[in-house]
C-alpha cells in the first residue's frame, strides 16, 4: 500500500495526560462553538476539540476550506462515558438520574468528529473509525485515499481515547492486565494533498507510510525499519518483547502511553521535539493479531 505516500504534515496538536492520570475537566478548545455549547459536552468530545484546535493553530489555518477538508478520527474505545452515562440514567433504579437525550445523541461513534466539523464549519467528508490498536492507521489510510482521489485538499486525522471509568478498566477493556500503565489523550495531524496550495516547503515533515494487516509478523516488520542515527521507534505494549531487538534505534518513549491510539501521540511528540531531521516508526499489534506500521519523517 504505497501509492498514497508520502503526505506532507503541516500541523499537529496533542493533549495527553501522564500515564495513570486523567486529563483536567476544564479543557479549553481555543475555538468558538455555535451557541457556546462547549461546556455542555462530555469529556470525550471536549478533548477531541481541544487537540484538534491545537492542530489547526499549529498549521496556521484560521479557516479551513469547508468542502475540501476532511476529518478522519480513529478511536479504539469510542465515547463510552456518554454511552454508559445514558444507559445508567435510563435504567436508574433510584430515580435520581435523568436520562439526557442529547447524551444519547452524543454517544454515537462520530459525535466528536461532528462537533469538530461544526466548529470548523466543514462540509466535506467526516469519518469516524474504530479499529482497536490500528485505529489511527485505519484513519490515516482512509484520509490518504480521499486526498489522492482529489476529494479533499486537507485532512485532519486524529486519535482520541479516554478512560471509562478509570485506568484499570481501560486496560482491561483492551485485553491487557494491570499493572500496565495507561494514559488518555487526543492527537491530531493536519495533512495536505501533494500538489495542492497547502503543500509548501514549510511542512513540518511527512507521513512516509501507513499500513496495516489483519495478521502479520511484527519481528519481520521490525527488521524492515531503519537503524542508526536519527532513527526512532515506538512500540505498543503488546510488542514490548521486541524492545530487546530494537538495536541502535532510539527507543522513543514520549511518556504518552495512552492507547489504543497512543502511536498518534508519539508521532506528535516526535514532531515537536527540538533537533534535526529524523524518522520515527510506530509498530502496534492488537490482541487478535492485527498489525499496524506508520513511518514519519521530521524535517530539520
Amino acid at each position, binding site marked *: *500500500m504505497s501509492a*498514497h505516500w508520502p503526505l506532507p504534515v503541516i500541523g499537529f496538536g496533542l493533549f495527553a495526560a501522564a500515564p495513570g492520570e486523567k486529563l483536567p475537566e476544564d479543557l479549553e478548545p481555543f475555538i468558538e462553538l455555535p451557541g457556546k455549547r462547549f461546556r455542555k459536552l462530555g469529556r470525550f468530545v471536549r478533548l477531541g476539540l481541544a487537540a484538534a484546535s491545537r492542530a489547526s493553530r499549529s498549521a496556521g489555518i484560521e479557516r479551513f476550506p469547508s468542502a475540501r477538508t476532511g476529518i478522519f478520527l480513529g*478511536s*479504539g*474505545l*469510542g465515547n463510552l462515558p456518554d454511552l*454508559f452515562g*445514558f*444507559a*445508567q440514567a*435510563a*435504567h436508574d*433504579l433510584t430515580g435520581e438520574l435523568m436520562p439526557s*437525550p*442529547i447524551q*444519547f*445523541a*452524543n*454517544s*454515537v*461513534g*462520530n*459525535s466528536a468528529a*461532528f*462537533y469538530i*466539523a*461544526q466548529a470548523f*464549519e466543514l*462540509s*466535506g*467528508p*467526516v*469519518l*469516524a*473509525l*474504530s*479499529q*482497536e490498536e*490500528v*485505529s489511527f492507521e*485505519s484513519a490515516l*489510510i*482512509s484520509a490518504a*485515499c480521499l486526498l489522492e482521489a482529489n*476529494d479533499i485538499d486537507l485532512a485532519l486525522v486524529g486519535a482520541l481515547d479516554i478512560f471509562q471509568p478509570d485506568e484499570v*478498566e*481501560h486496560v*482491561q*477493556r*483492551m*485485553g491487557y492486565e494491570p499493572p500496565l500503565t495507561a494514559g488518555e489523550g487526543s492527537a491530531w495531524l493536519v495533512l495536505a494533498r501533494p500538489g495542492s496550495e497547502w503543500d509548501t516547503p514549510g511542512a513540518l515533515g511527512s507521513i512516509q507510510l501507513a499500513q*496495516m*494487516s*489483519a*495478521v502479520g509478523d511484527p519481528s519481520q516488520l521490525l527488521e524492515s525499519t531503519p537503524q542508526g542515527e536519527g532513527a526512532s521507534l515506538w512500540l505498543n505494549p503488546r510488542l514490548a518483547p521486541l524492545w530487546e531487538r530494537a538495536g541502535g534505534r532510539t527507543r522513543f518513549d514520549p511518556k504518552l502511553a495512552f492507547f*489504543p491510539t497512543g502511536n498518534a501521540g508519539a508521532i506528535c511528540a516526535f514532531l515537536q521535539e527540538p533537533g534535526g531531521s529524523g524518522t520515527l516508526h510506530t509498530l502496534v499489534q*492488537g*490482541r*487478535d*493479531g492485527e498489525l499496524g506500521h506508520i513511518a514519519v519523517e521530521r524535517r530539520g
Partner: protein
Amino acid sequence: MRIEIRAAAALSCFGEGPEAHRLALRTGRCGLLQRPGHSGGPALPCARIGDQSSAELRPLELAEHTLQSVLEQAGLGPAERRSCALFLGTTTGLSATEELLWLEQHRLGKPWHANMRSGGLGRLAAVLASRLGSRAPLFTYTTACTSTAVALVMAARLVRAGQVERALVLGLDVLMGIAADGFRYLQLYSETGCRPFDRDRDGLQLGEGCAALLLEKGGSGRFEMLDGAIAHDSSHIASGSSDGRTAAGVMAEAMRRSRVERGSITAIKAHGTGTPANDLSELNALTKIFGERPPPFSSLKGALGHTLGASSALETAAWLWCLEEGFLPPTVGFANAAQPGLEPLRQPLPLDGRPGVHLFNAFGFGGTSVSYLIRDRGTR
C-alpha cells in the same frame, strides 16, 4: 475500472437470503412487530431476527455466519480469502452481548464494568478477520446510520485505487436497550408505525440486520458499484438541514463522480426513516435535484425497520435481489403524500430486467451524508 458486486448475503426479520427478502418485499410485508420490551423496558414495535433477542443469538455468530455465506456463494478459496480486506459498519459491534450482562449486574446493584473485555466497536472486525484468515487491512466505520454506506464507498475507492484486492463489506446491528431508549427519549421512536415519507409519519422503528457484499475489480456480473460521495451536515447532531441542501449536494456529487446524468437515474433507494426531519430533508433534496418528478423512489425501513449501521448493506442487498427478480420494492407503511405529487412507490414496480442506474442514499446522526450509485446491466 469496473468494480463488481460479486456476491451478497443478508439476514433480517424476513429470514435469510434472496428468496425470503424478495417474497416479503414484493408482497409488502412489514417485519415490525410489537415485542416485549428489551431488558425490562416498555414493549416496542421492532423487527427482530427470529424470536430470540439477537444479543442472545450473539452478534459475532451472526456476522460470521453471514460472511461465510457470502464467501461460499462467491466460491473463494483460502488464498483469495487471505486477500479480502474487511470493511465493517456498525453502531453496536459486540456491545449487545455486553449490555445483557451489564443489565444482570445492574439489577444486582453493580456498576457496568469491563469484565467482558470486549474492546471497542472494531473488535468484531478483528475477530472476524482472524477467523477468515485474512491478511489484508480492516476498517470499522462508526458513522451511526451511514456506517455501511461509508464502508461501501471507501471499499470501492480502495479497490479502485489498487490498495486492496477485494473487499468484504459487512453491516451488523442488533437491538440494544440503549438504542431503543435513546430514540424514545429523543421522541423519534414511533409507537404507531413506521411510515416513511407519509404526511402523518411520526418516527422510526428499529430493526436488526446483518448483511455482507463482496466487491472486486473487473468481473462481468450484473451489478457494478460506480462511485459515491460523503459530505457533512453540521445543522444538528441528530438531524440534517430541513432544506435538504447537504443531501442534494451529496447526491449531485455522487452522480458527478460516477459520470451519470440525473436524467439517467432509474430509481432511488431512499434513506426514508419515517422521522419528520429526515424525510422532509430528503424530499426537499430530491426536489432540488430532480424537480417535481423525481425517478421512482422507495424506502425499505417500513418493512425491515431501521437497522442503523447495517441499514445500507442490508437494504442494498435486498434492493439488488428485487432487481434480479424484476421489480422495485414498495414503501411499506406509506399512505398519504406529505407533498402533493411527491410520493414513494406504493406497489412493486416491474422493471423486467431493464438495465439502469440506481442511486442509494444514507443520512444519519453525526451529520454524515452519503450517496452512491450501482449500475444494473439487466437481463435484456
